[in-house]
């Protein structure tokens, strides 16, 4: 076995095995996925229903944890509604939860009374028996009830800095985000399609330049294979993206997103490349014209899918417009452990396929010339 020649195939196989298995089986962190009601009027005793996904008090989490408060088995001790504007919080008087599902019923006295509390959004925090918190920022809107203007207040006018500063300790699990939920795992499958496409088209651009410089037909054929497999990655990126968008953004193709429009135009340019190549019959002319075309469209493609969305004010994609990208504050450390290998693995796999296609094309060329 020639390791030097085959290393990227091993990279593709091992990295993708790791990414697919880890990406599918590693659990999501517990997180609040919903609460009811989301709008409340203050005054009197009220109850709040909170849905918690992968709740740490579920019985399956208690496996091997004999005592409450040990290992993964944590019970909720307190629910707080934390105000941002007026520093302070409301706290529960009683909590009901069951070990069979992740729903929690919190009763609290919500009297604003004579204290100066404004109508605003409150963040919800659940305190667990190990002192950690599950939180959902600005999740509930509370306004002062008509009869709740005087008297005793349940508002605790001090900031619980512990809840606010509950920095995440590294755990081998994926973050749980509203809207995304389990589909956060698609980061390892949908996003690397585009990384692979960009890598392959970039390499194709490089080989096209090489062809124009040295005039070797092998370079032209390799560039062509890279473009074709790059387009395959792009098409798969589009379809997987549409599937993901359907469940999270509620639309197959949110047309207002500049990234999607940019990709649509960019892909069309590469389809035009295929058309152009198929119409030219003379191999040398075909190689030269498509090489020039490919060198020209690659920077435009980059501009369309990376630079334009960044300048636009309204993109849903991370890393463009007002939305955040993959810098150290956005991408969770567990996600990184799988995302980077995923990118490398998928690029290696597509490169492998492009290499196969190139070898088949060379064989065909030899047959024609023989």
């Amino acid at each position, binding site marked *: 076995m020639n390791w030097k020649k085959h290393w990227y195939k091993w990279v593709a196989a091992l990295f993708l095995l790791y990414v697919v298995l880890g990406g*599918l089986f590693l659990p999501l962190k517990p997180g609040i996925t*919903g609460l009811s009601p989301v709008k409340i009027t203050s005054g009197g005793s009220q109850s709040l229903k909170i849905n918690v996904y992968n709740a740490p008090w579920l019985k399956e989490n208690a496996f091997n944890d004999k005592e409450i408060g040990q290992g993964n088995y944590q019970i909720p001790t307190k629910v707080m509604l934390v105000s941002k504007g007026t520093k302070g919080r409301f706290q529960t008087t009683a909590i009901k939860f069951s070990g069979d599902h992740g729903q929690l019923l919190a009763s609290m006295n919500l009297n604003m009374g004579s204290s100066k509390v404004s109508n605003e959004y409150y963040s919800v925090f659940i305190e667990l028996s190990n002192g950690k918190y599950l939180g959902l920022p600005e999740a509930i809107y509370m306004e002062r009830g008509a009869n709740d203007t005087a008297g005793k207040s349940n508002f605790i006018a001090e900031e619980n800095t512990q809840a606010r500063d509950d920095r995440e300790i590294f755990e081998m699990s994926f973050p749980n985000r509203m809207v995304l939920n389990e589909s956060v795992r698609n980061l390892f499958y949908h996003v690397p399609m585009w990384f692979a496409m960009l890598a392959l088209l970039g390499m194709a651009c490089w080989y096209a330049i090489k062809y124009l410089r040295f005039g070797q037909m092998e370079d032209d054929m390799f560039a062509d294979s890279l473009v074709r497999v790059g387009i395959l990655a792009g098409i798969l990126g589009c379809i997987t993206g549409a599937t993901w968008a359907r469940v999270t953004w509620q639309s197959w193709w949110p047309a207002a997103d500049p990234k999607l429009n940019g990709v649509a135009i960019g892909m069309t340019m590469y389809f035009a490349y295929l058309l152009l190549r198929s119409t030219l019959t003379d191999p040398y002319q075909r190689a030269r014209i498509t090489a020039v075309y490919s060198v020209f469209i690659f920077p435009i493609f980059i501009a369309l899918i990376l630079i334009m969305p960044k300048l636009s004010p309204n993109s849903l994609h991370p890393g463009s417009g007002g939305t955040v990208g993959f810098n150290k504050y956005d991408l969770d450390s567990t996600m990184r452990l799988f995302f980077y290998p995923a990118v490398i693995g998928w690029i290696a796999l597509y490169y492998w396929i492009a290499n196969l296609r190139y070898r088949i094309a060379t064989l065909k060329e030899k047959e024609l010339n023989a």
Partner: protein
Amino acid sequence: MKQTITEQFDANAAELLAKHNLMNAVYAVLAIIFVGILLYLVRLDRKVSKIEKQS
């Protein structure tokens, strides 16, 4: 007991969120990639067969 529209909405939203954990989206995406790459490999396979027949 009569529910107001907002209460009904809240209840539905909570139920929806509890039911749809979106794991299916992950399976769908993986299946699409798998099928896509497989179809491309089938096409390559046919090309090889053609060359084999010619020689």
